């Protein structure tokens, strides 16, 4: 069933939320409020939102180093996220994880990851657990085009296919792995085509079209829930900003970012909604206001929150450890 008006508007607001969170986070990083090595997903919002819109709240997501958008799209609370990015004590990981190593188990977000493609081999295990518990859930694992050249991608897809596990592999192909162009690192060119080798569906699509992403994910999720096994989706998109904050981007010209802005997934959905009479300027402004208020609330919360006590560095290591270390 195609998404109804409410769901379409939710996707619109969802993409806007990811975009504005990322833009705000970049600003806060530039102002020295947020530490760490920051990777944002500005321009890639349709993938996170289109995928997560096709999931149930109890489905799982495994994410990447560029993972804020996945968490926001999965429904993660902005307060917990923002406080974590600030390294505050009441961040969702109590300041231990930060931008690249955060998780929010309450919404099935099983972790951003500092190690590329790590999620590709965790996913089959999550799938195994789902199958064993007969819970009808699915797990999505996101990874970049660059990460698809690591062994765990191949091992994970093979295992999930071999054991018919409810996994959806989602490759966000933004044409670059840091400074290395997709074409200069990837034999055969297509990630989606690799699915054929493992006997599962592989689909290459326009990752700036949130509806296309939603549709393909909905199909893959349905197949997974039916018990027919994994699928691979390759969503082509464009990262508008540097690989990390502070990246001089000497490796690419302005044209690509301009192309990204021309194919802006948010503007594109807005146009579609306007044509169908579901959105007008006033309504769009209202949605934006609401999202901005949510974000500013999270920022104010993070600003006001305490830093962790230094010796809290020693907590959380084991569930139970009464021994002297």
């Amino acid at each position, binding site marked *: 069933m195609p998404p109804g008006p409410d769901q379409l508007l939710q996707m619109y607001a969802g993409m806007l939320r990811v975009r504005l969170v990322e833009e705000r986070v970049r600003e806060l990083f530039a102002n020295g409020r947020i*530490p760490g090595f920051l990777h944002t997903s500005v321009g890639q919002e349709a993938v996170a939102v289109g995928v997560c819109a096709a999931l149930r709240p109890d489905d799982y997501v495994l994410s990447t180093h560029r993972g804020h958008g996945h968490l926001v799209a999965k429904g993660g609370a902005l307060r917990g996220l923002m406080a974590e990015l600030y390294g505050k004590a009441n961040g969702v990981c109590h300041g231990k994880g930060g931008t690249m190593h955060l998780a929010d188990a309450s919404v099935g977000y099983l972790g951003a990851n500092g190690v590329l493609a790590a999620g590709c081999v965790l996913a089959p295990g999550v799938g195994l657990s789902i199958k064993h518990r007969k819970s009808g859930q699915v797990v999505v694992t996101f990874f970049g085009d660059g990460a698809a050249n690591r*062994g765990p991608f191949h091992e994970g897809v093979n295992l999930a296919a071999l054991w018919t596990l409810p996994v959806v592999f989602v490759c966000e192909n933004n044409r670059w792995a840091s400074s290395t162009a997709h074409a200069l690192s990837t034999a055969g060119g297509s990630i989606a085509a690799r699915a054929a080798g493992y006997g599962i569906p592989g689909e290459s699509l326009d990752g700036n079209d949130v509806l296309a992403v939603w549709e393909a994910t909905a199909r893959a999720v349905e197949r997974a829930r039916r018990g027919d096994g994994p699928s691979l989706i390759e969503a082509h998109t464009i990262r508008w900003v540097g690989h990390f904050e502070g990246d001089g981007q000497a490796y690419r010209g302005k044209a690509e970012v301009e192309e990204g802005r021309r194919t802006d997934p948010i503007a594109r959905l807005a146009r579609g909604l306007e044509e169908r009479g579901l959105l007008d300027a006033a309504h769009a402004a209202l949605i934006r206001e609401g999202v901005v208020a949510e974000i500013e609330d999270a920022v104010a919360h993070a600003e006001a929150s305490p830093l962790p006590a*230094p010796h809290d560095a020693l907590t959380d290591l084991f569930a139970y450890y009464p021994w002297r270390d």
Partner: protein
Amino acid sequence: MPLLDFGDALNLALREEMRRDPRVYCIGEDIVLGLPFGVTKGLIDEFGADRVLNAPISEAAIVGSAMGAAVTGLVPVVDMHFADFVTCAMDEVANQIAKSRYMFGGQIDCPLTLRMPYGIGKSGGGHHSNSVEAWFINIPGLKVCIPSTPADARGLLKTAIRDPDPVLVFEHRGLYRVTGEVPEAETLVPLGSADVKRAGGDVTVIATARMVHESLEAARRLAEEGIEVEVVDPRSLVPLDRDTLAASVRKTSRVVIAEEGPMRGSTGAWLAWVVMEACFDDLDAPIARVAGPNVPIPFSPPLEGFVTPTANDVVAAVRQALK
């Protein structure tokens, strides 16, 4: 002597060795542009794409192929990007590279260098901050060096590249922009030669990489109280210059060992045993240690600060050793 920073000194070493020996090539992720720490910057202009290879994100293949090339006549220098990701090529390092000469009865040279940017700082978090040198001294068949100054970095990397065996060079990422004098003339630092970075008669501090600098700072502070600290930098952990360490300990009779990684099963634990074995009768106090706590590296600055050993910790350990 010209001043160079640590990163540029490594860059110089690569250039010198690549000029000297056409078999030397560099491989790693994003090294054409010199990412992530600038060490390989500009090499592409002088040596071209045949000798400066940007690899896909495929650590096992990067390290494994380097071994394949090394055992058949080339001399690879692998940039591990962040040493944390060596886990993704651990079989290649631990089972293949480390063991080939031994298992095959000494038939084959494996002249391979692994450059390991590592260490804590700037809220890198759990997957981008680890001091993993201890893992590798536990693998027979690998040589391990760990420079603290630009001159040592250049000299050790050159030696590593010329060595017929696999050598890991640990480059603390907090040191890349530290400057120091580097000899104009091509100068090698042999493996297994420790260096006394500061002479003193009261306490020996054995420290590696960033902790050498923290220990020198501690020594300056303690000197104001009349405590003279000798700072000894082993520079390579495998092989280890036991004689220089022992000579210093015989002079001072008191020892502190400082490193950045976690306390348990670490390089400091090994060095403590080496010192004790050589100098048991000379010691006037138990060996004191400075190291990180046994936890992963947290993100938030106050947490990260808590697990980062500094000059303060060295000062405290020296006082303990003086008790």
